[in-house]
């Protein structure tokens, strides 16, 4: 006779009952936490563990998929790269053009302001310099054909540039105020003290100013009425006052020119 339940069956039965009890307990715990609106520790453990697994799996599968996609899209990437390079080059060119426009605009504005102030002025452009740099002379692109005459004053938006010393039909030579042969009657604007502005190759020296004039660093020096200029055009500002020699009847000062001679571009010739 075969028994209905064997020892092995009993173990299975106990295992089944135990599982049901544990499951019931888990269910009860879950229900209890669910009723309170909380996540049970078991759920938390499971979801945390599963989350890590999901992340890991996602990374692996994502990597594989990305690698596969990359491999598959190499031909299209090359084309896209070429397109982006072209676009980059176009944008760089556009950027350069805008930068150049930005650099030119202030110069054009300055030129316009000078033209408005001196309506009879002849606009000109500097086209050449002294080849050996021994004379402070520049060549401009306006000459006798444009009614430029010898000794005409030349200015830009910053102040006095120099005077015309040679006139050809198409071009003229302008002696800068920094040349040692340049002499310009000038006035210290604050006190109307007269002097002669002589070039020193790099700067300008205001000489023969009355010893009574209380010159100060920063004083503005302007042109006096003379052969080349009308009064009141800025020459520069006093940067240093030279000590007066014993028994001297006049004093001197170094003027920092208002014009930057290294960046001369557009100038205006002032016919007298």
């Amino acid at each position: 006779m075969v028994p209905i339940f064997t020892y092995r069956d009993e173990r299975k039965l106990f295992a089944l009952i135990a599982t049901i009890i544990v499951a019931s307990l888990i269910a009860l715990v879950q229900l209890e936490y669910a009723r309170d609106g909380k996540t049970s520790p078991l759920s938390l453990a499971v979801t945390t563990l599963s989350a890590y697994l999901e992340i890991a799996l996602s990374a692996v599968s994502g990597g594989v998929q990305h690698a596969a996609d990359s491999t598959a899209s190499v031909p299209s990437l090359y084309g896209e790269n070429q397109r982006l390079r072209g676009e980059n080059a176009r944008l760089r060119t556009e950027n350069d053009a805008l930068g150049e426009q930005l650099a030119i605009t202030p110069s054009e504005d300055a030129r316009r302001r000078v033209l408005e102030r001196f309506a009879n002025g002849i606009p000109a452009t500097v086209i050449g310099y002294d080849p050996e740099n021994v004379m402070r002379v520049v060549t401009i692109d306006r000459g006798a054909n444009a009614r430029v005459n010898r000794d005409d004053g030349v200015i830009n938006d910053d102040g006095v540039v120099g005077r015309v010393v040679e006139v050809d039909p198409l071009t003229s030579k302008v002696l800068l105020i920094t040349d040692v042969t340049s002499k310009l009657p000038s006035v210290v604007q604050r006190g109307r003290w007269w002097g002669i502005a002589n070039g020193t190759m790099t700067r300008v020296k205001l000489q023969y100013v009355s010893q009574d004039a209380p010159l100060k660093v920063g004083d503005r020096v302007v042109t006096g009425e003379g052969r080349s200029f009308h009064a009141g055009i800025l020459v520069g500002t006093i940067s240093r006052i030279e000590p007066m020699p014993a028994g001297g009847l006049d004093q001197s000062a170094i003027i920092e020119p208002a014009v930057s001679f290294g960046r001369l571009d557009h100038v205006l010739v002032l016919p007298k």
Partner: protein
Amino acid sequence: MAASTTSLSFRSNDREIAAASAPSIALAVGVVALAAILQATLLHVAVIRNATPSLVLIVVVLYALRVGAERGLLIGALGGLFEDALTGGTGGSWTLATALVAIVAGAMSRFFFSDAPQALIIAVALGSLLRSAFFWSIMSLGGYPSGLAATHLHTAILQALYTTLVAIPIILFLARSKERPVRRIKLRDFRST
């Protein structure tokens, strides 16, 4: 047998061959004019402490050393004339000074011939100093203020150094690119026949 390309020779034969194989006067005039224009338009940005390299002087000295005083004088005078025309206010000072330097360089070539770069570099340096001395002497005679003699001396020395530095690569390039041995063989063969 071909002579060395870097040599110092006192034989008149070598001088004649060097002069015969030199560039034509028309080409030299074009080069010296181009040098003057480059100096007036572009090289002002390369000014260091008021000194600028003189391409005109380099061309004149190298050409005069090669072809002698007569043709050198022509190129020197024209080079100086271009500079006077582009400067303004110097009268003919550059013309005279550069022509005098060309005569000196050309006269030196009557006594020896050298295409050694070291000799040419020294010639350019001395030529620059000599030309500045000639120029300022002529300007002083013309009434130019002489109060800045010390400044002009410093500038002249600096310009000689600067010009020499610019001349070195030019001389080395010319030394590498010319084909003197081949020309000598051809000319000698021609003369022997």
